């Protein structure tokens, strides 16, 4: 607030407060509007780095398991990080993306192992040793007719979920 140094303020009265000078009011209003606008713009800009639709390729794919696939043996559809198993007419899919740091696990006798930090998993995906914090994800599988199955890499299901063909 501006004061006149030549004339010291008389004791302000509680009942008759001095009106805020117009310039002060306009200054405060303009400053708060400016900050408000910046804040509003910042909130808008902060939404920008995440696109509404992620640009990754479709996570669903259709595959026909080979007739000769023995029970308990994994089948790796080409181009996908998934292992498919068939026991009788029941099929399930396990993701081969390591839960530690995202490397692709390889099959070994009695499960999977990760080349990056040596995590080992049992055939059902549960952790046997190494730094992986959780089991390999089981993925949603559906019969797609004609012996084919539709696998959805984007939809994990509880371990043990199998689909009857």
């Amino acid at each position, binding site marked *: 607030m501006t004061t006149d140094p030549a004339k010291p303020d008389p004791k302000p009265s509680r009942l008759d407060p001095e009106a805020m000078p117009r310039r002060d009011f306009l200054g405060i209003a303009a400053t708060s509007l400016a900050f408000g606008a910046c804040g509003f713009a910042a909130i808008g800009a902060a939404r920008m*780095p995440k*696109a509404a639709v992620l640009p990754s390729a479709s996570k669903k794919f259709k595959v026909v398991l080979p007739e000769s696939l023995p029970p308990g043996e994994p089948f790796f559809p080409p181009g996908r990080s998934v292992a498919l198993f068939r026991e009788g007419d029941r099929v399930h899919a396990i993701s081969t993306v390591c839960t530690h*740091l995202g*490397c692709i696990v390889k099959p070994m006798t009695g499960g999977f*192992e990760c*080349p*990056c930090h*040596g995590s080992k998993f049992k055939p059902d995906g549960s952790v046997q040793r190494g*730094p992986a*914090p959780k089991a390999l994800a089981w993925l949603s599988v559906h019969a797609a007719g004609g012996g084919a199955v539709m696998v959805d890499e984007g939809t994990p299901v509880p371990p043990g979920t199998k689909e009857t063909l």
Partner: protein
Amino acid sequence: MSLETETPPGLRGFIENAKRAPRRFLDSMFRSGKPVTDRGRSNFVFGNVYLHLHSARTHRWSLRWLTTGGLGIVSLSAFLITLVTGVLLMFYYKPYPEAAYLSIKDIHFIVPTGRFLRNIHRWAANVMVVCVLLHMARVFYTCAYRKPREFNWVIGMLLLATTLGLSFTGYLLPWDQLAYWAITIGANIAQSPREVTDAVNITQHVDPGGFQKLILLGSDEVGEEALIRFYLLHVMILPLILVGLLAVHFWRIRKDGGLARPADADKRLPLPDVKTYPVFTEAPKKTYSLAAIVKGRTAAVGAGPENTVPSMPHLFYGEAAAFMLTVFVCVLLSIFIDAPLKELANPLVPENPAKAPWYFLGLQELVAHSAFAGGILIPGIVIVGLGLIPYLDREKSGTGEWFGGPGGLRLVGWSAVFGLAAVIAIETVAIRFGWIRQWFPEAPQLLITAINPGTVLMAVYGVYSVWLVRRYNSTRAGALGLFTCFLAGFLVLTLIGTYFRGPNWDFFWSPSQWPGH
């Protein structure tokens, strides 16, 4: 005829002016003429936009090689080299998967001098990381972070983080197997808070890890979005941040009173060489204060600029020498050692072993037990802890001296022995006998996140430094011990990660023992 004599009118005058034009051009470029007098040398500094960040005179203590080793200037030089070579590489580089790989291949094999430029860019980046770390160690060990330089130390921490960020983002750009899998690992480290949120089952409500990875990659996998983000960070955002921070960093050196030196530095300096440009020897009787303009003591108040020499030539020649040495080393390394380029990135087959850049291999050694503890918790604590040092160590003695004066070196020596022994012992146990998961496969993840070689090592170092604080009754002693231990730990873990880890991150004494793969 002198330059300033009148020229006759007409054609003769025109010819005369044309002859003198080059000299006059030079005169007009350098405002104060040749720096031969003291005043001229000062003018040379503050009359030049690029040099005037320096003070006109420099204390002789600051010019000793032992004071700084020139490490800051070398780091800056390396940055300038990456800046120039980086801009040149941008002429050919195309930030799109596969095209990126092919363009790097073009730069390497087809573009004239392309391979050389790429090599220099990579080597200068490495030199920069090394020198930034050494520079930090120098500032720490000479206690140069103390009041009034605390804030500049914090800026230094930010610069360290930015430097590492620049290196890391540059690592993805070639889009080869090395790049792809290093970034996959890096992005999943960013996601690793899930290790904790999963364990307490709140990931579907609060998922900072998933958010970090998504923001970094712009997608849920390393692809074109990730590449363009890393490219933008690497060539635009991080360099701008770095330059902004550098400006503050340099400015604060000036404003905080130049380089730190011991209170009795003047007494300890030998008399100047007779051939040296004369130094001031007498303090003025009158003291000056620039009240309300400069906060705190100004460098010259009550002391006069004795024991200082003109920055031109004494400081600038030293800086130029450091710059030339940096260029020389980078060029030499680039001639003999090529930057690597592996096969095109294949998202289905991980590189085995997949290794991050060398300065992250110490961390990779830690994430091989727990991604969250090794990749986020420990680095976070280390960076915050380092930043806090000047606010915790408020002692005064030993500022500007290596290891804080006599006795310090012995303490550092013993701390190095302790630090090395501790890290080697813990790594030996982890490599020889495995860790909790091998002994108790059912152990909950939170237990492993909390207790793994990294956190155990950090706790051991912490207890040791607290013990030092009590034993010597000095925060500085504790800080010396802790910093030395962390350097030892960083060194050993980096060496193990670099040289002794092979496929499946198994331990091998030498790469020749790696199984074929």
